[in-house]
């Protein structure tokens, strides 16, 4: 069995089938039993000839990041691909069109950029595509054919996979795709001499057709469905739109309700209404839409009405970089409401965790009658991972409302001040359980009051819930060096994969480095972090934002010197960058 671990990039302009070629490749490789992680980047414009890159890492062992550099670059568009060359590794493979259509700008032909350190394979992509299907549309499949021929992939198995994928399309579409693939495959087999050393296992040990191949958005949607989601109200926005589009299809099948609202304020309003009515409800958005929900976040906390908001972060501020990755909405997730409003923030670190995080979010929101923010990001939303189908959630996560007993109803205090902050809660329809909720400060019965004492007691009650939630959140993930060491890397969200990978690499090099990450950021497991920090001389906080939002958040609890690694490149965090920083600190 080969221990292959390679990164393939397909680069073209919008509309050339770049992204779908990447998807076909990843899906096939996953079916063949490889571990894959893919990630696409594309422009914010619909057309406009913008650059698209489908990036896939394919490996025999479990991968934590998509990888920063590529082993293979498949150039569908020359000028865009030129700008992708800097991430092609030394001795990397370049598959390009050696007879590009003549209207191409000569200067921008990639052929002019070939260098000794590359292994170029020129294939007449355009010509072969026209030959196969009468037009150039199938260039992406020709390129995949060339790739398959070069890297030892079985033509038959690949074609079967394409057919499964396109099963519902018109026959002519399937045929054109298959013919283009075959054309590319055969031409390459017959005309190209392989000089690189990459080779896939032709008969992989364990074929995995039943795996899920999903991105973070889909994982969130599936987790929410598994957790009994009843209503999803949404408004389109990149990179969260897909959650809505999936649930639009899936919710009605389960008797739930999906609706598209006029704006994000209305979305969260609907979620709060459904929450008040006793149903699990969720909305999803990105930074700009989350801003509009700010006012409702405070109401959820104050009126103690469950609500879950998914915020998939993108480059900011403002409309920013809608199709680029960033982790810069932690501040607004934690602090984006008026007054003192403790909010639960769950930031899964991987596509798998997205599923569990959605289950946890809906559970905590209902049980603690409060706001939960599920903070994912462009990378998680769009990165595709193969996973074993998760088991159904533990039943205790499924119905968590604490209803008052019959006796309690006689003197029912909807906002009773309790040790754990949770008050008994009736659902509309319950006879004798009528109450009144308000965003005004209120007494235990919900009546608006503004006296000094009540506000203090109720504020404490609301904050006490967090103390309680802390008891049932997953343990932080701690890896790497186990004793007293030099550098502790503390990371969050999707950067945690890169941090762990960097720590593994550093430990392999003999460095005493550990990694800490917690899926739940608020309430934060401060004690665990303090214990972790006690083991290291320096703390390194890598994050994909400029101002160090997480580093600032943990500043009041970390007593060691904190080094920061902040990047706003629009790309996911890479282990290489963290490793470099670790070496600098040493």
């Amino acid at each position, binding site marked *: 069995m080969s221990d292959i671990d390679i990164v393939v990039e397909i680069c073209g302009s919008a509309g050339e089938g770049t992204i779908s070629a990447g998807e076909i490749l990843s899906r096939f490789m996953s079916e063949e039993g490889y571990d894959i992680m893919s990630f696409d980047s594309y422009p914010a414009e619909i057309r406009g000839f913008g650059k698209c890159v489908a990036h896939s890492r394919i490996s025999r062992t479990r991968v934590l990041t998509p990888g920063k550099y590529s082993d293979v670059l498949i150039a569908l568009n020359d000028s865009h691909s030129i700008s992708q060359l800097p991430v092609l590794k030394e001795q990397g493979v370049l598959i390009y069109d050696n007879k590009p259509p003549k209207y191409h700008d000569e200067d921008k032909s990639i052929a002019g950029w070939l260098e000794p350190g590359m292994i170029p394979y020129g294939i007449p992509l355009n010509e072969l595509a026209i030959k196969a299907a009468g037009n150039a549309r199938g260039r992406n499949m020709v390129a995949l054919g060339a790739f398959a021929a070069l890297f030892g992939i079985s033509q038959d198995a690949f074609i079967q996979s394409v057919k499964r994928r396109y099963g519902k399309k018109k026959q002519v579409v399937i045929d054109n795709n298959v013919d283009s693939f075959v054309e590319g495959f055969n031409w390459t087999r017959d005309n190209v001499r392989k000089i690189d050393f990459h080779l896939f296992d032709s008969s992989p040990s364990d074929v995995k057709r039943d795996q899920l191949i999903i991105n973070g958005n889909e994982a969130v949607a599936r987790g929410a469905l598994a957790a009994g989601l009843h209503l999803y109200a949404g408004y389109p926005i990149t990179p969260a739109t897909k959650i809505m589009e999936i649930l639009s299809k899936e919710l*009605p099948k389960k008797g739930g309700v999906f609706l598209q609202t006029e704006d994000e304020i209305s979305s969260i*309003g609907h979620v709060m209404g*459904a929450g008040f009515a006793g149903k699990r409800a969720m909305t999803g958005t990105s930074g700009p839409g989350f801003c509009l929900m700010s006012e409702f976040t405070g109401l959820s906390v104050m009126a103690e009405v469950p609500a879950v908001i998914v915020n998939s972060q993108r480059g900011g501020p403002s409309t920013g970089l809608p199709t680029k990755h960033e982790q810069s909405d932690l501040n607004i997730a934690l602090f984006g409401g008026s007054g003192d409003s403790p909010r639960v923030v769950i930031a899964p670190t991987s596509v798998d965790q997205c599923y569990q995080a959605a289950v946890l979010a809906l559970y905590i929101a209902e049980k603690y009658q409060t706001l939960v923010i599920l903070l994912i990001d462009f990378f998680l939303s769009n990165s595709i991972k193969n996973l074993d189908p998760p088991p159904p959630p533990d039943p205790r996560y499924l119905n968590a409302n604490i209803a008052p007993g019959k006796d309690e109803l006689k003197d029912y205090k909807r906002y009773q001040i309790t040790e754990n902050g949770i008050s008994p809660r009736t659902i509309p329809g319950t006879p004798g359980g009528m109450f009144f909720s308000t965003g005004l400060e209120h007494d235990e019965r919900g009546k608006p009051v503004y006296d000094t004492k009540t506000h203090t007691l109720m504020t404490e009650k609301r904050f006490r819930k967090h103390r309680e939630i802390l008891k049932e959140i997953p343990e932080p993930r701690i890896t790497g060096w186990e004793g007293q060491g030099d550098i502790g890397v503390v990371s969050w969200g999707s950067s945690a994969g890169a941090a762990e990978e960097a720590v593994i690499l550093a430990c392999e090099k003999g460095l005493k480095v550990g990694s800490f990450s917690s899926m739940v950021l608020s309430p934060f497991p401060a004690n665990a972090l303090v214990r972790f920090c006690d083991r290291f001389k320096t703390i390194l906080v890598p994050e994909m934002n400029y101002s160090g939002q997480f580093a600032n958040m943990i500043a009041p609890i970390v007593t060691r010197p904190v080094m920061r690694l902040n990047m706003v490149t629009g790309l996911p965090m890479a282990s290489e960058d963290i490793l470099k920083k670790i070496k600098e600190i040493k």
Partner: protein
Amino acid sequence: MITPGSQYLDEQINTVKENGFLRYRTGELPTWCPGCGYFGITDAILKACLELNLKNEEICAISGIGCAGRYPVFMNVYGFHTLHGRSIPVASGVKLAREDLTVFAVAGDGDALGIGGGHLPHIARKNIDITLFLFDNSIYGLTKGQSSATTLFGQATSSHPGGNPDTPLNPIKLALAYGASFVARGFAGDPEGLKHLAKEAITHKGFSFLHITTPCVTFDKFNFTWKNLKENHSYIDQSIHNVTDMESAMRIAEHERFKLGVFYKDSNRLSYHENLRNIASKKA
């Protein structure tokens, strides 16, 4: 200090104690000013609930912020005092999650036509089965008398002491243009008539828009006063107007700003839930 507000309530309590009318009231005394039109509206809605024999626990009253927004505080139902302008989406969320409940959205003119004006077209076109009670006093009451979207042109208010430079909106015209399937206007000074309209609105399948004119006795001493409203209001002659005739409804709304009664009603239009079910079954 003499408190006409609670006196008024005392009287009410005496006259209606026997007939169970107080079933929907909590023990809270309304914090509205003595003489406020909201007392009459409250009466009318309570009586409508009683006559329809709605179960307390099956009513959800969802309000925005403002004097009108306080309405659910005084109601013995499931009440939710949300945010300024947001009673509509929250009420809609309640109904979509729980078709079995009777859902009221309560909004002031600021709530419904100012800050929350963007929600109205969409609940109307979706035809979600809730009733909107629009308490329209043509002023921002709770914040002490600023102009609202229905304040008269030229009217002096706290925010426009020299006179309001904005032309008012015509709420009935808006509701009609949005395609609301039930559109009516009632008056706080005629709780009996209002009760009938409320009953019709509540029982209508789909979105019901009930515009209620009412005076703010504290912050409008000259325009929408009890006196002026009483003098100007009259019911639509239903023998002339057919409530399924949109054009006639628009015409009355345009030319007769003080007409009361049902302007428009489409009993055949499917509610949102019905549409969703049809689509789901079509696909299945």
